[in-house]
Protein backbone atom coordinates (compact mmCIF):
# COMPACT_ATOMS: atom_id res chain seq x y z
CA UNK A 1 0.00 0.00 0.00
CA UNK A 2 1.54 3.23 -1.08
CA UNK A 3 0.92 6.91 -0.79
CA UNK A 4 -0.80 6.77 -4.18
CA UNK A 5 -3.48 4.51 -2.74
CA UNK A 6 -4.16 6.88 0.14
CA UNK A 7 -4.27 9.85 -2.22
CA UNK A 8 -6.60 8.10 -4.62
CA UNK A 9 -8.86 7.03 -1.80
CA UNK A 10 -9.06 10.62 -0.59
CA UNK A 11 -9.72 11.90 -4.10
CA UNK A 12 -12.64 9.54 -4.56
CA UNK A 13 -14.17 11.24 -1.56
CA UNK A 14 -14.72 14.43 -3.57
CA UNK A 15 -17.34 13.17 -6.06
CA UNK A 16 -19.12 11.18 -3.35
CA UNK A 17 -19.16 14.24 -1.15
CA UNK A 18 -20.63 16.36 -3.96
CA UNK A 19 -23.27 13.71 -4.57
CA UNK A 20 -24.23 13.71 -0.90
CA UNK A 21 -24.37 17.52 -0.84
CA UNK A 22 -26.66 17.55 -3.88
CA UNK A 23 -28.93 14.77 -2.66
CA UNK A 24 -29.38 16.13 0.84
CA UNK A 25 -29.84 19.66 -0.44
CA UNK A 26 -32.67 18.83 -2.83
CA UNK A 27 -34.28 16.16 -0.67
CA UNK A 28 -34.76 18.42 2.31
CA UNK A 29 -35.95 21.23 0.01
CA UNK A 30 -38.54 19.01 -1.63
CA UNK A 31 -39.86 17.84 1.74
CA UNK A 32 -43.18 19.56 2.44
CA UNK A 33 -43.13 22.64 4.65
CA UNK A 34 -40.29 25.02 5.33
CA UNK A 35 -38.39 26.65 8.16
CA UNK A 36 -40.99 29.40 8.59
CA UNK A 37 -44.16 27.32 8.32
CA UNK A 38 -44.79 26.95 12.03
CA UNK A 39 -48.23 26.88 13.61
CA UNK A 40 -47.99 30.52 14.41
CA UNK A 41 -48.71 32.43 11.23
CA UNK A 42 -46.26 35.21 10.47
CA UNK A 43 -47.46 38.26 8.54
CA UNK A 44 -46.81 38.09 4.79
CA UNK A 45 -44.38 41.00 4.85
CA UNK A 46 -42.33 39.49 7.66
CA UNK A 47 -42.17 36.19 5.82
CA UNK A 48 -40.99 37.99 2.70
CA UNK A 49 -38.27 39.76 4.64
CA UNK A 50 -37.16 36.53 6.23
CA UNK A 51 -37.01 34.78 2.87
CA UNK A 52 -35.02 37.62 1.43
CA UNK A 53 -32.59 37.50 4.33
CA UNK A 54 -31.94 33.79 3.83
CA UNK A 55 -31.97 34.10 0.00
CA UNK A 56 -35.00 31.84 -0.20
CA UNK A 57 -36.61 34.12 -2.74
CA UNK A 58 -33.98 33.14 -5.31
CA UNK A 59 -34.54 30.21 -7.65
CA UNK A 60 -33.59 26.88 -6.04
CA UNK A 61 -30.72 26.21 -8.41
CA UNK A 62 -29.19 29.56 -7.58
CA UNK A 63 -29.47 28.80 -3.87
CA UNK A 64 -27.77 25.47 -4.53
CA UNK A 65 -24.78 27.08 -6.16
CA UNK A 66 -24.66 29.73 -3.46
CA UNK A 67 -24.51 26.93 -0.88
CA UNK A 68 -21.70 25.20 -2.79
CA UNK A 69 -19.75 28.42 -2.98
CA UNK A 70 -20.09 29.02 0.75
CA UNK A 71 -19.24 25.40 1.44
CA UNK A 72 -15.98 25.71 -0.47
CA UNK A 73 -15.03 28.38 2.08
CA UNK A 74 -16.11 26.03 4.91
CA UNK A 75 -19.00 28.34 5.64
CA UNK A 76 -22.10 26.29 6.43
CA UNK A 77 -24.36 29.30 6.63
CA UNK A 78 -26.65 30.69 9.32
CA UNK A 79 -29.21 28.56 11.15
CA UNK A 80 -32.80 29.23 10.13
CA UNK A 81 -34.20 28.45 13.53
CA UNK A 82 -31.55 29.50 16.00
CA UNK A 83 -31.37 33.14 15.17
CA UNK A 84 -27.98 34.81 15.30
CA UNK A 85 -26.13 31.48 15.31
CA UNK A 86 -24.24 29.97 12.42
CA UNK A 87 -24.11 26.27 11.71
CA UNK A 88 -20.34 26.43 12.18
CA UNK A 89 -20.88 27.74 15.70
CA UNK A 90 -23.45 25.09 16.54
CA UNK A 91 -21.18 22.30 15.34
CA UNK A 92 -18.12 23.74 17.04
CA UNK A 93 -20.02 23.82 20.30
CA UNK A 94 -21.95 20.55 20.20
CA UNK A 95 -19.79 18.20 18.16
CA UNK A 96 -16.88 17.92 20.64
CA UNK A 97 -19.40 16.86 23.29
CA UNK A 98 -20.84 14.14 21.03
CA UNK A 99 -17.35 13.11 20.03
CA UNK A 100 -16.23 12.80 23.64
CA UNK A 101 -19.31 10.81 24.60
CA UNK A 102 -18.85 8.60 21.54
CA UNK A 103 -15.17 7.91 22.16
CA UNK A 104 -15.67 7.09 25.84
CA UNK A 105 -18.56 4.80 24.90
CA UNK A 106 -16.44 3.11 22.26
CA UNK A 107 -13.67 2.52 24.80
CA UNK A 108 -16.19 0.85 27.10
CA UNK A 109 -17.56 -1.15 24.20
CA UNK A 110 -14.09 -2.39 23.23
CA UNK A 111 -12.94 -3.06 26.77
CA UNK A 112 -16.05 -4.93 27.83
CA UNK A 113 -16.78 -6.50 24.46
CA UNK A 114 -13.31 -7.89 23.75
CA UNK A 115 -12.72 -9.23 27.25
CA UNK A 116 -16.16 -10.84 27.45
CA UNK A 117 -15.86 -12.31 23.95
CA UNK A 118 -12.29 -13.45 24.56
CA UNK A 119 -13.27 -15.17 27.80
CA UNK A 120 -16.18 -16.88 26.07
CA UNK A 121 -13.92 -18.09 23.27
CA UNK A 122 -11.30 -19.32 25.71
CA UNK A 123 -13.80 -21.51 27.55
CA UNK A 124 -16.52 -22.23 25.01
CA UNK A 125 -19.72 -23.96 26.10
CA UNK A 126 -19.10 -23.33 29.76
CA UNK A 127 -20.43 -20.92 32.35
CA UNK A 128 -17.89 -18.31 31.12
CA UNK A 129 -19.37 -18.53 27.65
CA UNK A 130 -23.07 -18.73 28.45
CA UNK A 131 -23.24 -15.81 30.87
CA UNK A 132 -21.61 -13.11 28.71
CA UNK A 133 -23.27 -14.41 25.56
CA UNK A 134 -26.73 -14.32 27.14
CA UNK A 135 -26.02 -10.83 28.42
CA UNK A 136 -24.94 -9.80 24.95
CA UNK A 137 -28.26 -10.92 23.49
CA UNK A 138 -29.88 -8.72 26.10
CA UNK A 139 -27.56 -5.86 25.15
CA UNK A 140 -28.39 -6.14 21.49
CA UNK A 141 -32.12 -6.40 22.09
CA UNK A 142 -32.63 -3.76 24.76
CA UNK A 143 -32.97 -0.27 23.29
CA UNK A 144 -31.02 2.62 24.80
CA UNK A 145 -34.19 4.24 26.10
CA UNK A 146 -34.68 1.22 28.34
CA UNK A 147 -31.06 0.70 29.40
CA UNK A 148 -30.57 4.43 30.15
CA UNK A 149 -33.46 4.92 32.58
CA UNK A 150 -32.74 1.58 34.26
CA UNK A 151 -29.12 2.65 34.85
CA UNK A 152 -30.33 6.01 36.17
CA UNK A 153 -32.73 4.21 38.46
CA UNK A 154 -30.13 1.79 39.86
CA UNK A 155 -26.93 3.81 40.05
CA UNK A 156 -28.43 7.27 40.31
CA UNK A 157 -31.55 7.02 42.41
CA UNK A 158 -31.28 3.79 44.42
CA UNK A 159 -27.56 3.52 45.08
CA UNK A 160 -26.96 7.25 44.78
CA UNK A 161 -23.49 6.65 43.33
CA UNK A 162 -23.58 8.71 40.18
CA UNK A 163 -25.24 11.89 38.91
CA UNK A 164 -28.24 11.29 36.68
CA UNK A 165 -27.81 14.15 34.22
CA UNK A 166 -25.52 16.93 33.07
CA UNK A 167 -22.13 17.13 31.43
CA UNK A 168 -19.67 18.79 33.80
CA UNK A 169 -17.67 16.44 36.02
CA UNK A 170 -16.12 13.10 35.05
CA UNK A 171 -18.83 11.29 37.00
CA UNK A 172 -21.32 12.77 34.55
CA UNK A 173 -19.60 10.85 31.77
CA UNK A 174 -20.03 7.40 33.30
CA UNK A 175 -23.74 6.58 33.01
CA UNK A 176 -24.32 7.99 29.52
CA UNK A 177 -21.19 6.40 28.07
CA UNK A 178 -22.02 3.02 29.63
CA UNK A 179 -25.55 3.26 28.33
CA UNK A 180 -24.42 4.09 24.83
CA UNK A 181 -21.52 1.62 24.87
CA UNK A 182 -23.61 -1.29 26.19
CA UNK A 183 -25.20 -2.33 22.89
CA UNK A 184 -21.90 -1.97 21.07
CA UNK A 185 -20.11 -3.99 23.75
CA UNK A 186 -22.70 -6.70 23.27
CA UNK A 187 -22.15 -6.80 19.54
CA UNK A 188 -18.35 -6.61 19.82
CA UNK A 189 -18.31 -9.50 22.32
CA UNK A 190 -20.13 -11.68 19.79
CA UNK A 191 -17.76 -10.64 16.99
CA UNK A 192 -14.74 -11.32 19.21
CA UNK A 193 -16.01 -14.73 20.23
CA UNK A 194 -16.78 -15.63 16.61
CA UNK A 195 -13.40 -14.39 15.42
CA UNK A 196 -11.45 -16.29 18.05
CA UNK A 197 -13.51 -19.45 17.66
CA UNK A 198 -12.76 -19.47 13.96
CA UNK A 199 -9.05 -18.93 14.52
CA UNK A 200 -8.92 -21.68 17.15
CA UNK A 201 -9.73 -24.27 14.54
CA UNK A 202 -7.10 -23.13 12.08
CA UNK A 203 -4.20 -25.43 11.26
CA UNK A 204 -1.64 -22.88 12.40
CA UNK A 205 -3.05 -22.95 15.93
CA UNK A 206 -2.45 -26.71 15.96
CA UNK A 207 1.10 -25.98 14.79
CA UNK A 208 1.56 -23.52 17.64
CA UNK A 209 0.30 -26.11 20.11
CA UNK A 210 2.57 -28.75 18.57
CA UNK A 211 5.48 -26.42 19.16
CA UNK A 212 4.76 -26.55 22.89
CA UNK A 213 3.35 -23.07 23.40
CA UNK A 214 1.03 -22.47 26.34
CA UNK A 215 -2.60 -21.57 25.75
CA UNK A 216 -1.94 -18.00 26.87
CA UNK A 217 0.96 -17.64 24.42
CA UNK A 218 -1.23 -19.05 21.68
CA UNK A 219 -4.03 -16.64 22.50
CA UNK A 220 -1.87 -13.54 22.71
CA UNK A 221 0.57 -14.17 19.90
CA UNK A 222 -1.16 -16.46 17.45
CA UNK A 223 -4.90 -15.82 17.72
CA UNK A 224 -5.23 -12.17 18.71
CA UNK A 225 -4.53 -10.54 15.37
CA UNK A 226 -6.70 -12.77 13.27
CA UNK A 227 -9.41 -13.04 15.89
CA UNK A 228 -9.71 -9.31 16.27
CA UNK A 229 -10.13 -8.60 12.54
CA UNK A 230 -13.95 -8.82 12.51
CA UNK A 231 -14.03 -6.30 15.35
CA UNK A 232 -11.70 -3.97 13.47
CA UNK A 233 -13.85 -3.96 10.36
CA UNK A 234 -16.86 -3.24 12.55
CA UNK A 235 -15.08 -0.30 14.23
CA UNK A 236 -15.54 2.13 11.35
CA UNK A 237 -19.32 1.93 11.13
CA UNK A 238 -19.50 1.55 14.92
CA UNK A 239 -17.62 4.75 15.64
CA UNK A 240 -19.73 6.68 13.16
CA UNK A 241 -22.91 5.10 14.49
CA UNK A 242 -21.99 5.65 18.11
CA UNK A 243 -21.46 9.36 17.50
CA UNK A 244 -24.46 9.90 15.27
CA UNK A 245 -26.74 7.61 17.21
CA UNK A 246 -26.22 9.30 20.52
CA UNK A 247 -29.48 11.28 20.29
CA UNK A 248 -31.47 9.14 22.71
CA UNK A 249 -28.66 8.97 25.22
CA UNK A 250 -28.07 12.71 24.94
CA UNK A 251 -31.75 13.36 25.57
CA UNK A 252 -32.01 10.99 28.56
CA UNK A 253 -28.98 12.47 30.28
CA UNK A 254 -29.50 16.04 29.10
CA UNK A 255 -26.17 16.30 27.30
CA UNK A 256 -25.57 19.27 24.99
CA UNK A 257 -24.43 17.15 22.02
CA UNK A 258 -25.02 17.32 18.30
CA UNK A 259 -27.61 14.53 18.14
CA UNK A 260 -30.34 16.88 19.30
CA UNK A 261 -29.59 19.36 16.51
CA UNK A 262 -29.52 16.60 13.93
CA UNK A 263 -33.07 15.46 14.65
CA UNK A 264 -34.52 18.85 15.52
CA UNK A 265 -33.22 20.45 12.35
CA UNK A 266 -34.78 17.79 10.17
CA UNK A 267 -38.14 18.20 11.90
CA UNK A 268 -37.98 22.01 11.77
CA UNK A 269 -36.69 22.13 8.19
CA UNK A 270 -33.70 24.06 9.44
CA UNK A 271 -32.11 23.55 6.03
CA UNK A 272 -28.58 24.68 6.76
CA UNK A 273 -28.28 22.70 10.00
CA UNK A 274 -29.58 19.58 8.23
CA UNK A 275 -26.92 20.08 5.57
CA UNK A 276 -24.17 20.81 8.05
CA UNK A 277 -24.82 17.84 10.33
CA UNK A 278 -25.38 15.43 7.43
CA UNK A 279 -22.15 16.43 5.75
CA UNK A 280 -20.27 16.16 9.02
CA UNK A 281 -21.59 12.66 9.61
CA UNK A 282 -20.81 11.65 6.05
CA UNK A 283 -17.23 12.84 6.44
CA UNK A 284 -16.97 11.02 9.74
CA UNK A 285 -18.19 7.71 8.31
CA UNK A 286 -15.90 8.07 5.32
CA UNK A 287 -12.84 8.83 7.43
CA UNK A 288 -13.60 6.03 9.91
CA UNK A 289 -13.92 3.43 7.19
CA UNK A 290 -10.79 4.73 5.56
CA UNK A 291 -8.84 4.44 8.80
CA UNK A 292 -10.14 0.91 9.31
CA UNK A 293 -8.93 -0.10 5.86
CA UNK A 294 -5.50 1.29 6.62
CA UNK A 295 -5.45 -0.44 9.99
CA UNK A 296 -6.40 -3.70 8.31
CA UNK A 297 -3.19 -3.67 6.29
CA UNK A 298 -1.18 -3.33 9.47
CA UNK A 299 -2.92 -6.34 11.02
CA UNK A 300 -3.13 -8.72 8.09
CA UNK A 301 0.01 -8.82 5.95
CA UNK A 302 -1.87 -10.59 3.15
CA UNK A 303 -4.11 -7.59 2.51
CA UNK A 304 -2.71 -5.30 -0.12
CA UNK A 305 -4.35 -2.34 -1.79
CA UNK A 306 -3.31 -1.42 -5.28
Amino acid at each position, binding site marked *: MGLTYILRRLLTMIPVFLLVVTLVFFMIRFAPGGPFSAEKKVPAQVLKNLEAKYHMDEPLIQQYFRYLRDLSRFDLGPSFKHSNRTVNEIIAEAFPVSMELGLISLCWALLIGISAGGLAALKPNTFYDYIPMSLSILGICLPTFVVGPVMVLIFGLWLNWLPVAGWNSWQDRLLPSLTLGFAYAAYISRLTRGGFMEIRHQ*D*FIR*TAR*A*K*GLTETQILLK*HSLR*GGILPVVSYLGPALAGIITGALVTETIFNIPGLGRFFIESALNRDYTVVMGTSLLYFTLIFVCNFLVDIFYVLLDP*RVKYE
Partner: protein
Amino acid sequence: MAILEIKNLKAHFHTRRGVVKAVNGISYSIEPGQTLGIVGESGSGKSVSQLSYLKLLPSPPLKIPEGEVLFRGENILAMTEEKLRTIRGNKISMIFQEPMTSLNPYLTIGSQLIEPLIIHLKKSKRDAWKEACAALSRVGIAEPEKAMKSYPHEFSGGMRQRVMIAMALTTRPEILIADEPTTALDVTVQAQILDLLREIQKETQMAIILITHDLGVIAGLADKMVVMYAGRIFEEGPVETLFHQSEHPYTRALLRSTPRVDVLQDKIPVIGGSIPDLSQVGQGCPFYERCEFRTDICQITFPTSRKIAHNHETFCHVEKFQ
Protein backbone atom coordinates in the same frame (compact mmCIF):
# COMPACT_ATOMS: atom_id res chain seq x y z
CA MET B 1 15.97 -49.77 22.92
CA ALA B 2 12.81 -48.33 21.46
CA ILE B 3 12.52 -44.57 21.75
CA LEU B 4 8.75 -44.65 21.44
CA GLU B 5 6.53 -47.57 22.28
CA ILE B 6 2.80 -47.55 21.80
CA LYS B 7 0.87 -50.23 23.66
CA ASN B 8 -2.77 -51.00 22.98
CA LEU B 9 -3.65 -47.34 22.36
CA LYS B 10 -7.31 -46.47 21.93
CA ALA B 11 -8.68 -43.08 20.95
CA HIS B 12 -12.42 -42.57 20.85
CA PHE B 13 -14.48 -39.56 19.85
CA HIS B 14 -17.62 -39.21 21.91
CA THR B 15 -20.09 -37.61 19.54
CA ARG B 16 -23.82 -37.15 19.63
CA ARG B 17 -24.20 -40.01 17.19
CA GLY B 18 -22.24 -42.44 19.32
CA VAL B 19 -18.67 -43.38 20.11
CA VAL B 20 -16.41 -43.21 17.07
CA LYS B 21 -13.53 -45.60 17.64
CA ALA B 22 -10.94 -43.80 15.54
CA VAL B 23 -8.07 -45.75 17.06
CA ASN B 24 -9.00 -49.13 18.40
CA GLY B 25 -6.09 -50.75 20.18
CA ILE B 26 -2.81 -50.37 18.31
CA SER B 27 0.73 -51.26 19.34
CA TYR B 28 4.09 -50.68 17.74
CA SER B 29 7.48 -49.24 18.55
CA ILE B 30 10.21 -47.26 16.85
CA GLU B 31 13.96 -47.06 17.38
CA PRO B 32 16.27 -44.06 17.04
CA GLY B 33 17.31 -43.44 13.45
CA GLN B 34 14.47 -45.53 12.15
CA THR B 35 11.67 -44.38 9.86
CA LEU B 36 8.29 -45.88 10.50
CA GLY B 37 5.68 -45.44 7.81
CA ILE B 38 2.01 -45.55 8.77
CA VAL B 39 -0.19 -46.22 5.75
CA GLY B 40 -3.90 -46.36 5.36
CA GLU B 41 -6.90 -44.80 3.67
CA SER B 42 -8.39 -41.52 4.82
CA GLY B 43 -10.16 -42.10 8.10
CA SER B 44 -8.12 -45.14 9.07
CA GLY B 45 -6.86 -43.41 12.20
CA LYS B 46 -3.27 -42.75 11.12
CA SER B 47 -3.20 -39.10 12.12
CA VAL B 48 -5.42 -39.50 15.16
CA SER B 49 -3.12 -42.20 16.53
CA GLN B 50 -0.32 -39.62 16.71
CA LEU B 51 -2.21 -36.41 17.46
CA SER B 52 -4.19 -38.04 20.28
CA TYR B 53 -1.37 -38.88 22.66
CA LEU B 54 0.29 -35.51 22.07
CA LYS B 55 -3.02 -33.92 23.13
CA LEU B 56 -3.33 -31.99 19.90
CA LEU B 57 -6.98 -32.89 19.41
CA PRO B 58 -9.84 -31.19 21.21
CA SER B 59 -10.91 -33.13 24.26
CA PRO B 60 -13.86 -33.53 24.57
CA PRO B 61 -14.85 -35.10 22.20
CA LEU B 62 -11.61 -37.13 22.23
CA LYS B 63 -11.00 -39.64 25.00
CA ILE B 64 -8.21 -42.14 25.43
CA PRO B 65 -9.83 -44.98 27.40
CA GLU B 66 -6.89 -47.38 27.26
CA GLY B 67 -3.28 -47.69 26.32
CA GLU B 68 0.24 -46.55 27.06
CA VAL B 69 2.62 -44.44 25.03
CA LEU B 70 6.13 -44.76 26.35
CA PHE B 71 8.66 -42.11 25.37
CA ARG B 72 12.06 -43.29 26.65
CA GLY B 73 10.16 -45.57 29.00
CA GLU B 74 7.95 -42.84 30.45
CA ASN B 75 4.21 -42.90 29.84
CA ILE B 76 3.19 -39.74 27.97
CA LEU B 77 -0.47 -40.32 28.70
CA ALA B 78 0.15 -40.04 32.45
CA MET B 79 2.08 -36.75 32.17
CA THR B 80 0.72 -33.41 33.24
CA GLU B 81 0.03 -30.88 30.49
CA GLU B 82 3.02 -28.90 31.74
CA LYS B 83 5.39 -31.86 31.49
CA LEU B 84 4.01 -32.81 28.09
CA ARG B 85 4.66 -29.28 26.83
CA THR B 86 8.37 -29.71 27.50
CA ILE B 87 8.35 -32.72 25.17
CA ARG B 88 5.96 -31.53 22.50
CA GLY B 89 7.78 -29.35 20.00
CA ASN B 90 11.07 -30.10 21.75
CA LYS B 91 11.78 -33.84 21.89
CA ILE B 92 8.88 -34.76 19.63
CA SER B 93 8.22 -32.37 16.75
CA MET B 94 5.58 -32.42 14.06
CA ILE B 95 5.17 -31.30 10.50
CA PHE B 96 1.77 -31.24 8.89
CA GLN B 97 0.11 -31.90 5.60
CA GLU B 98 -0.96 -28.38 4.79
CA PRO B 99 2.06 -26.10 4.59
CA MET B 100 -0.30 -23.46 3.23
CA THR B 101 -2.34 -23.19 6.41
CA SER B 102 -0.01 -24.60 9.04
CA LEU B 103 1.98 -21.41 9.32
CA ASN B 104 0.41 -18.36 10.93
CA PRO B 105 -0.37 -15.89 8.12
CA TYR B 106 -0.29 -12.91 10.47
CA LEU B 107 3.26 -13.41 11.73
CA THR B 108 6.62 -13.32 9.99
CA ILE B 109 8.45 -16.57 9.33
CA GLY B 110 11.15 -15.45 11.72
CA SER B 111 8.92 -14.79 14.69
CA GLN B 112 7.38 -18.24 14.29
CA LEU B 113 10.70 -19.95 13.76
CA ILE B 114 12.37 -18.65 16.90
CA GLU B 115 9.53 -19.71 19.21
CA PRO B 116 10.66 -23.31 19.90
CA LEU B 117 14.21 -22.11 20.59
CA ILE B 118 13.03 -19.52 23.07
CA ILE B 119 10.48 -21.62 24.95
CA HIS B 120 12.34 -24.93 25.04
CA LEU B 121 16.03 -24.09 24.88
CA LYS B 122 15.67 -20.73 26.70
CA LYS B 123 17.71 -18.92 24.08
CA SER B 124 17.82 -15.15 23.91
CA LYS B 125 15.95 -13.59 21.04
CA ARG B 126 19.17 -12.69 19.26
CA ASP B 127 20.68 -16.19 19.53
CA ALA B 128 17.41 -17.78 18.51
CA TRP B 129 17.28 -15.53 15.46
CA LYS B 130 20.79 -16.54 14.44
CA GLU B 131 20.06 -20.21 14.91
CA ALA B 132 16.79 -19.98 13.02
CA CYS B 133 18.64 -18.40 10.09
CA ALA B 134 21.06 -21.31 10.12
CA ALA B 135 18.14 -23.74 10.24
CA LEU B 136 16.61 -22.09 7.19
CA SER B 137 19.76 -22.35 5.16
CA ARG B 138 20.12 -25.99 6.24
CA VAL B 139 16.76 -26.78 4.62
CA GLY B 140 17.90 -25.09 1.44
CA ILE B 141 16.39 -21.64 1.68
CA ALA B 142 18.57 -19.04 0.03
CA GLU B 143 18.80 -15.64 1.71
CA PRO B 144 17.58 -16.81 5.12
CA GLU B 145 17.85 -13.30 6.59
CA LYS B 146 15.33 -12.06 4.06
CA ALA B 147 13.12 -15.12 4.50
CA MET B 148 12.96 -14.55 8.25
CA LYS B 149 11.34 -11.18 7.65
CA SER B 150 8.86 -12.50 5.08
CA TYR B 151 5.30 -13.63 5.64
CA PRO B 152 4.14 -17.17 4.77
CA HIS B 153 1.97 -16.03 1.86
CA GLU B 154 5.05 -14.75 0.08
CA PHE B 155 6.38 -18.32 -0.14
CA SER B 156 5.43 -21.25 -2.37
CA GLY B 157 4.09 -24.51 -0.92
CA GLY B 158 7.44 -26.27 -1.11
CA MET B 159 9.22 -23.36 0.53
CA ARG B 160 6.66 -23.27 3.31
CA GLN B 161 7.10 -26.98 3.95
CA ARG B 162 10.85 -26.37 4.18
CA VAL B 163 10.12 -23.68 6.74
CA MET B 164 7.91 -26.11 8.66
CA ILE B 165 10.69 -28.68 8.65
CA ALA B 166 13.25 -26.12 9.75
CA MET B 167 10.91 -25.06 12.55
CA ALA B 168 10.34 -28.64 13.68
CA LEU B 169 14.05 -29.34 13.71
CA THR B 170 15.42 -26.28 15.50
CA THR B 171 15.29 -28.02 18.88
CA ARG B 172 16.92 -31.20 17.48
CA PRO B 173 14.00 -33.48 18.30
CA GLU B 174 14.45 -37.18 18.88
CA ILE B 175 11.25 -37.98 17.04
CA LEU B 176 9.78 -36.20 14.04
CA ILE B 177 6.17 -36.96 13.24
CA ALA B 178 5.49 -36.09 9.61
CA ASP B 179 1.77 -36.10 8.88
CA GLU B 180 1.36 -36.33 5.11
CA PRO B 181 4.35 -34.03 4.62
CA THR B 182 4.30 -34.13 0.84
CA THR B 183 0.64 -34.64 -0.02
CA ALA B 184 -0.07 -31.01 -0.84
CA LEU B 185 3.08 -30.58 -2.92
CA ASP B 186 3.81 -31.32 -6.56
CA VAL B 187 5.93 -34.30 -7.46
CA THR B 188 9.33 -32.67 -7.97
CA VAL B 189 8.97 -30.74 -4.74
CA GLN B 190 7.90 -33.98 -3.01
CA ALA B 191 11.14 -35.61 -4.01
CA GLN B 192 13.17 -32.65 -2.73
CA ILE B 193 11.40 -32.69 0.63
CA LEU B 194 11.90 -36.45 1.04
CA ASP B 195 15.60 -36.09 0.17
CA LEU B 196 15.87 -33.35 2.74
CA LEU B 197 14.27 -35.47 5.46
CA ARG B 198 16.53 -38.40 4.62
CA GLU B 199 19.61 -36.21 4.75
CA ILE B 200 18.70 -34.64 8.09
CA GLN B 201 17.91 -38.03 9.56
CA LYS B 202 21.29 -39.36 8.58
CA GLU B 203 22.88 -36.41 10.34
CA THR B 204 20.88 -36.38 13.56
CA GLN B 205 19.77 -39.99 13.99
CA MET B 206 16.26 -38.89 14.84
CA ALA B 207 13.36 -41.27 14.43
CA ILE B 208 10.73 -40.36 11.87
CA ILE B 209 7.09 -41.39 12.01
CA LEU B 210 5.76 -40.85 8.53
CA ILE B 211 2.01 -40.80 8.09
CA THR B 212 0.86 -41.09 4.50
CA HIS B 213 -1.52 -42.80 2.11
CA ASP B 214 1.11 -42.63 -0.60
CA LEU B 215 2.92 -45.97 -0.87
CA GLY B 216 5.52 -44.34 -3.09
CA VAL B 217 6.56 -42.06 -0.27
CA ILE B 218 6.79 -45.03 2.09
CA ALA B 219 8.94 -46.93 -0.40
CA GLY B 220 11.22 -43.93 -0.70
CA LEU B 221 11.75 -43.16 2.95
CA ALA B 222 10.55 -45.77 5.44
CA ASP B 223 12.36 -48.80 6.87
CA LYS B 224 9.40 -50.31 8.62
CA MET B 225 5.72 -49.94 7.91
CA VAL B 226 2.43 -50.32 9.66
CA VAL B 227 -0.79 -50.77 7.71
CA MET B 228 -3.83 -49.27 9.41
CA TYR B 229 -7.49 -49.73 8.67
CA ALA B 230 -10.51 -48.48 10.62
CA GLY B 231 -8.49 -47.81 13.74
CA ARG B 232 -6.75 -51.20 13.71
CA ILE B 233 -3.32 -52.35 12.65
CA PHE B 234 -3.56 -55.01 9.95
CA GLU B 235 0.06 -55.68 9.24
CA GLU B 236 3.47 -54.58 10.41
CA GLY B 237 6.89 -55.32 9.00
CA PRO B 238 9.89 -54.13 7.00
CA VAL B 239 8.82 -52.15 3.93
CA GLU B 240 10.52 -54.56 1.52
CA THR B 241 8.76 -57.57 3.04
CA LEU B 242 5.33 -55.99 3.08
CA PHE B 243 5.64 -54.78 -0.49
CA HIS B 244 6.57 -58.25 -1.79
CA GLN B 245 5.41 -60.85 0.74
CA SER B 246 2.42 -59.36 2.41
CA GLU B 247 0.32 -61.82 4.36
CA HIS B 248 -2.77 -59.67 4.64
CA PRO B 249 -5.54 -59.36 2.03
CA TYR B 250 -5.93 -55.64 2.70
CA THR B 251 -2.25 -54.82 2.23
CA ARG B 252 -2.24 -56.80 -0.99
CA ALA B 253 -5.34 -55.06 -2.25
CA LEU B 254 -3.84 -51.69 -1.34
CA LEU B 255 -0.64 -52.46 -3.24
CA ARG B 256 -2.60 -53.73 -6.24
CA SER B 257 -4.62 -50.55 -6.42
CA THR B 258 -1.53 -48.34 -6.63
CA PRO B 259 -1.06 -47.00 -10.17
CA ARG B 260 2.13 -48.21 -11.80
CA VAL B 261 4.20 -46.74 -14.56
CA ASP B 262 6.15 -49.91 -15.32
CA VAL B 263 3.17 -52.11 -16.21
CA LEU B 264 0.58 -51.51 -18.89
CA GLN B 265 -2.75 -51.21 -17.11
CA ASP B 266 -6.16 -50.75 -18.69
CA LYS B 267 -7.82 -50.06 -15.41
CA ILE B 268 -6.37 -49.53 -11.97
CA PRO B 269 -7.86 -52.18 -9.66
CA VAL B 270 -9.86 -50.77 -6.77
CA ILE B 271 -10.95 -52.19 -3.44
CA GLY B 272 -14.72 -52.58 -3.63
CA GLY B 273 -16.93 -50.99 -0.98
CA SER B 274 -15.89 -48.28 1.42
CA ILE B 275 -14.43 -47.88 4.89
CA PRO B 276 -16.99 -48.78 7.60
CA ASP B 277 -18.73 -46.32 9.89
CA LEU B 278 -16.39 -46.16 12.86
CA SER B 279 -19.22 -45.72 15.33
CA GLN B 280 -20.72 -49.03 14.17
CA VAL B 281 -17.72 -51.39 14.17
CA GLY B 282 -18.16 -54.41 16.40
CA GLN B 283 -15.77 -57.02 17.68
CA GLY B 284 -15.05 -58.54 14.28
CA CYS B 285 -12.56 -57.57 11.60
CA PRO B 286 -13.55 -54.16 10.17
CA PHE B 287 -12.46 -55.25 6.69
CA TYR B 288 -14.96 -58.14 6.70
CA GLU B 289 -17.47 -56.51 4.31
CA ARG B 290 -14.85 -55.81 1.65
CA CYS B 291 -12.61 -58.83 2.03
CA GLU B 292 -12.66 -61.52 -0.66
CA PHE B 293 -11.28 -64.19 1.69
CA ARG B 294 -13.62 -63.66 4.62
CA THR B 295 -14.68 -66.59 6.77
CA ASP B 296 -17.28 -66.81 9.51
CA ILE B 297 -14.81 -66.29 12.33
CA CYS B 298 -13.81 -62.89 10.83
CA GLN B 299 -17.18 -61.45 11.70
CA ILE B 300 -16.98 -62.57 15.31
CA THR B 301 -13.53 -61.62 16.58
CA PHE B 302 -10.62 -59.53 15.47
CA PRO B 303 -7.58 -61.81 14.96
CA THR B 304 -4.63 -61.75 17.32
CA SER B 305 -1.17 -61.10 16.01
CA ARG B 306 0.38 -63.82 13.87
CA LYS B 307 4.14 -63.80 13.44
CA ILE B 308 5.19 -64.51 9.88
CA ALA B 309 8.89 -63.83 10.27
CA HIS B 310 11.20 -61.78 12.42
CA ASN B 311 9.63 -58.27 12.56
CA HIS B 312 6.73 -59.27 10.34
CA GLU B 313 3.34 -59.59 11.97
CA THR B 314 -0.08 -59.82 10.45
CA PHE B 315 -3.58 -59.66 11.87
CA CYS B 316 -5.66 -62.03 9.77
CA HIS B 317 -7.55 -65.25 10.46
CA VAL B 318 -6.96 -66.56 6.98
CA GLU B 319 -3.58 -68.24 6.74
CA LYS B 320 -3.59 -69.32 3.15
CA PHE B 321 -5.10 -67.20 0.48
CA GLN B 322 -4.07 -66.78 -3.07
